[in-house]
């Protein structure tokens, strides 16, 4: 390669790295002549440096941190071909696409003819289709294959963690891997070795440490995972001596993949929860009070006998979830509870519910119930019998912050159907 080619390459590097990457559009005229021709410019872009300025001004509006990284240059005669990639955050309107906040990286190939150190002619451009797919503007034809590939990488990662297998981690994490949360941990080596060291440390702190993958989501070049971990605290953790306690925690991690390797990640895990379980710091939640919980359940059913249905707003969470049975299937929120109680009270105006037994521990109260009443109106499609009926149920209620948040419920629907005469053997 001759002196001219070396000079042209240096000039291209100067333009890209010092001018384009610093977004100094007012200096473009030093590198692109007024009459420069860009054979690949989109329609409506003027000729020469005015067009280059217009294009990059628009591009930088769509990505305020856009940066062009040169990978290789090939030069012969008065031409230079450049292999680079343009990457950044889509934080503004980019070619008509409103900001998505997504990170992108698009291959850029171009060939320029240099005259007196300026781009006299240019061919080439970026991988617009790839860019649009990354920004979600075009369907991703490779999503399924990539989801499978990324899931395999995540599985390899978790295998490496669970088996303290350093090589498995090095297979999937890039050498210069950047963990954005490492600032919290001092003394970690850079790159993939930080992952190896951090997980080695965790394995020393928690015997039998096992991470379980609960969820894997893939979009663009990112894979988001939700996991939970279990292990026995048998080694120092954050300087706290072992307690021998079984510890469990949850974690989320978003990893960005480039060229088949994890290159950066953001991580959140329940460190405080771990320290609470170790007994190092107190729990933020009030300790469970089984007797208070039983009193709350008593109030709820007494209110039902008083036909005070609206008490549910006081004693139950608006996010209440019921895991029921055939009579009361899965329900969410308070309205289905109110409707069910009203329907029963309409059909059985003298209905009484009695608590026959309660067993309470931790945040749960298991209650055995019996309803008795006269069927004065049609109920569940059955005509009114004017007979006294009775059925039982057992429910587990979970109480959080003084409200019932969740319930598991089984009732004697079978016996009820026998009393209706639908199933033989009852006292219809």
């Amino acid at each position: 390669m001759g002196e001219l080619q070396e000079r042209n390459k240096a000039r291209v590097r100067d333009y890209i790295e010092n001018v384009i990457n610093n977004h100094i559009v007012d200096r473009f005229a030093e590198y692109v002549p007024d009459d420069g021709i860009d054979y690949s410019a989109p329609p409506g872009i003027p000729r020469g440096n005015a067009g280059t300025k217009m294009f990059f001004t628009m591009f930088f509006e769509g990505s305020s941190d856009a940066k062009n990284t040169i990978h290789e240059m090939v030069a012969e005669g008065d031409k230079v071909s450049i292999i680079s990639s343009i990457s950044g955050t889509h934080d503004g309107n980019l070619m008509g696409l409103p900001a998505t906040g997504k990170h992108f990286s698009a291959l850029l190939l171009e060939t320029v003819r240099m005259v007196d150190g300026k781009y006299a002619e240019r061919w080439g451009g970026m991988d617009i289709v790839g860019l649009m797919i990354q920004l979600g503007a075009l369907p991703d034809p490779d999503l399924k294959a990539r989801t499978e590939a990324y899931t395999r990488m995540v599985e390899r990662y978790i295998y490496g963690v669970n088996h303290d297998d350093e090589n498995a981690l090095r297979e999937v994490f890039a050498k210069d891997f950047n963990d954005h949360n490492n600032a919290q941990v001092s003394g970690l080596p850079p790159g993939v070795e930080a992952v190896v060291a951090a997980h080695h440390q965790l394995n020393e702190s928690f015997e039998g440490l096992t991470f379980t993958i609960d969820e894997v989501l893939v979009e663009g070049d990112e894979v988001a995972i939700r996991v939970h971990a279990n292990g026995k605290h048998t080694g120092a953790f954050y300087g706290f001596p072992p307690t021998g306690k079984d510890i469990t925690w949850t974690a989320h991690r978003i990893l960005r993949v480039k060229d088949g390797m994890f290159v950066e990640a953001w991580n959140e895990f329940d460190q405080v929860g771990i320290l609470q379980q170790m007994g190092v710091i107190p729990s933020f939640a009030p300790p469970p009070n089984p007797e208070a919980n039983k009193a709350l359940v008593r109030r709820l059913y007494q209110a039902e006998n008083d036909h005070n249905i609206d008490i549910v707003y006081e004693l139950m969470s608006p996010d209440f979830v019921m895991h029921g049975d055939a009579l009361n299937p899965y329900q969410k929120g308070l309205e289905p509870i109110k409707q069910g109680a009203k329907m029963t009270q309409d059909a059985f105006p003298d209905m009484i519910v009695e608590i026959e037994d309660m067993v309470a521990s931790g945040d749960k109260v298991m209650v055995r119930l019996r309803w008795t009443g006269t069927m004065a109106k049609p109920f569940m499609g059955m005509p009114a019998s004017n007979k006294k009926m009775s059925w039982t149920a057992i429910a587990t209620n979970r109480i959080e912050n003084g409200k019932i948040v969740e319930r598991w419920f089984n009732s004697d629907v079978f016996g009820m159907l026998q009393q209706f005469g639908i199933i033989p053997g009852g006292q219809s």
Partner: protein
Amino acid sequence: MADESKYKIFWKLTQTEPNAPFAEQRGINYHAYPVDDYQIARADVQALANQYIANINAHNLDAAKAMLDDQCKEMTMPGEPVTKAGIDMTYGMLLNAFPDLNMTIIQVLIDGDMFVINGELHGTSQGQFYDNAPTGRSFVTYMIEIFKITNNNKFIERYFWYDAMKIVRAITGTG
């Protein structure tokens, strides 16, 4: 003991370049391919380029793929590097949409063990191209394809760009 001078490019990439990990992350094993020591005559590069172009214009993708080293990597969609499948992904898709696809050469640039095909693609819309149904319209668009050659005279890196937007404008009559 390994002769480190053989791996000068590798060391240069990993130790001095700001984008050092790029080549390594693509899985290109420079230790196995001491390309810096590999001197290839300009005429030989030109012959390889001509053969590749002839294979593409004969629509013989198997022959084109046979010119790629088994370790060949290319930068394509985010995340996964593709190897020989890249030829099928790019030219296979183009041939499906434009069965009369033809490449004409503006210039081949050669610099050491790399070469660049600066050319034009010509074709007629007879199959689906992304979201666009066939229209029977023809197009001419610019393309650039860049290769790095390794010491078995096979291609160890491949980069491909063509002006897809220009094709869409031409076949849909919008530009």
